């Protein structure tokens, strides 16, 4: 199949008088790492939530794997193969790390023993194996981020949605995170990531989509996007626009 894995067609989202997303159409191809960037209030998180199924768009459709999933709730989309992490980590705090991941693994495995084994594999993959029996509330922030990814991966997704999972980490932690994302893609999972930190995202992604004021501003190869005067204006204001 050559159809894109994920497609948003003419998506609008209004919150009362506020238009958070206006007529956004984007697509993500299989095996890509796509970065969704833009200044604060650009509508990234809204679009992200629409794709994850947290809320239905006011208008427009979301297509996943050749199917219209606009009306499906988040849990159903997870079954279809969409997994996500949260910008503000949402671990199951009273559960151990391994139990957190088992919750995800249960989507595909109904036999507990199999789900448990799968969860251990994912923890190994994410470098958290040593922390399996620790309570999630006892993890340090960077480990919690990693747990979010592990939990999402345990659902065996086709598309992994990462919501600022590299923000707020030390450079070293962020670098480990970048390697993890690459490793995830190498297993055949498509990645769509919302990020703030340009210098981390740009070398990582195959393609960047820049949102501004609820619209797609620019879309293309990272190196072209960062030089685009429109992007520079959006981020830094008119005074810094070069060659415009």
């Amino acid at each position, binding site marked *: 199949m050559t159809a894109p894995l994920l497609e948003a067609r003419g998506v609008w989202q209004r919150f009362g008088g506020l238009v958070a997303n206006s007529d956004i159409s984007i697509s993500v191809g299989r095996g890509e790492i796509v970065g969704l960037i833009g200044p604060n209030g650009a509508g990234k998180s809204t679009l992200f939530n629409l794709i994850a199924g947290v809320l239905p768009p006011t208008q427009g459709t979301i297509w996943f794997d050749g199917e219209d999933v606009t009306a499906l709730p988040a*849990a159903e989309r*997870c079954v279809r193969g969409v997994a996500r992490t949260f910008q503000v980590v*949402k*671990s199951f705090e009273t*559960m151990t790390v391994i139990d957190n991941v088992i*919750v995800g693994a249960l989507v595909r495995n109904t036999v507990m*023993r199999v789900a*448990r084994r799968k969860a251990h594999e994912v923890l190994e993959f994410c470098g958290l194996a040593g922390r399996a029996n620790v*309570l999630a509330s006892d993890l340090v922030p960077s480990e919690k981020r990693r747990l979010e990814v592990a939990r999402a991966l345990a659902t065996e997704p086709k598309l992994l949605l990462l919501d600022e999972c590299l923000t707020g980490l030390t450079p070293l932690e962020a670098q480990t995170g970048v390697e993890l994302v690459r490793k995830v893609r190498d297993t055949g999972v498509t990645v769509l990531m919302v990020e703030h930190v340009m210098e981390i995202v740009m070398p990582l992604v195959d393609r960047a989509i820049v949102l501004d004021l609820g619209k797609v501003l620019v879309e293309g190869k990272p190196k072209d996007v960062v030089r685009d005067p429109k992007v520079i204006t959006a981020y830094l204001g008119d005074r810094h626009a070069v060659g415009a």
Partner: protein
Amino acid sequence: MDTDFAKRRRRDLIVAFCLAAIAAVVPLFVKDVYVQNIMVLTLMYGALSQSWNILSGYCGQISLGHALYFGLGAYTTTILFTKFGVLPWFGMIGGGAISAVIAMALGYPCFRLRGHYFAIATIVIAEIALLLIQNWEWAGAALGITIPMSGDSWLKFQFARSKLPYFYFALGLVCVAWFVTWWLEDSKWGYWWRAVKDNPDAAESLGVVVFNSKMGAAAVSAFLTAIGGAFYAQFVSYIDPESVMGFQFSLLMALPAVLGGIGTLWGPMLGAVILIPVTELTRSFIGGSGRGVDLIVYGGLIIAISLARPQGLVSLFTPKRKEATR
């Protein structure tokens, strides 16, 4: 790692079996009827609290209206027996089934509420049900219903003199409630429930259907609670709305679990073993004269335990996991 986990599960099962075996022989040595009575009540509240713990402990939906299901169980068996001659054994199952259905019917609107609002709704609904029964002439209204005694009989599950049959039934009920919890703990439902309790949004994103999880927990919890109610009706052989649906029952189901360790396998039973005898003993020894001294002592004890061990008494027995792995 996996073997550790399996070992712990097996150890729980063995410990439970041993405790049940020990409990089973206790009444052979303790002949005092008063003490036997306390033991029956302790087991009953242990079972009820274990049932409450499924919805409120594991799934995190704090119910303060479980008296409703307790009362439904009591009323269903009693009415079926006194009006239609249905044996209490079938009445129990019927009461359980009705409670489970009603729990889901009530859950349909109520599970859209989160946190405190859900708890408030459960209190209100239980109070409404209490008022309805109090005014329902056919069901005995405020006067209640007496179960006619016709000699000791296992068939009709009534015994005039001996407490032992009730004791063994209550013990069996505790074992069933404990085993159901043990079994659910390592099942898809158990994991879903805990995920829903800790973070419904994250659970939803991992394919957990939050609403259905809550409905499932409510049904299991209400079913077991109603069996307890049916048992209680047989045990006291007289029921009226206040004595089986009063708010105090909702609290007495919640307290052992909360003190023993909410959302844990052993918490409710441990809480019941401490709390129920204390309730009864304070009532017997200092309740009569002092006008509420028993309740002051009782309340003080609860405050002391919850201050000293906010995670519940069961945490005294769990090894310190944190230090061990760090």
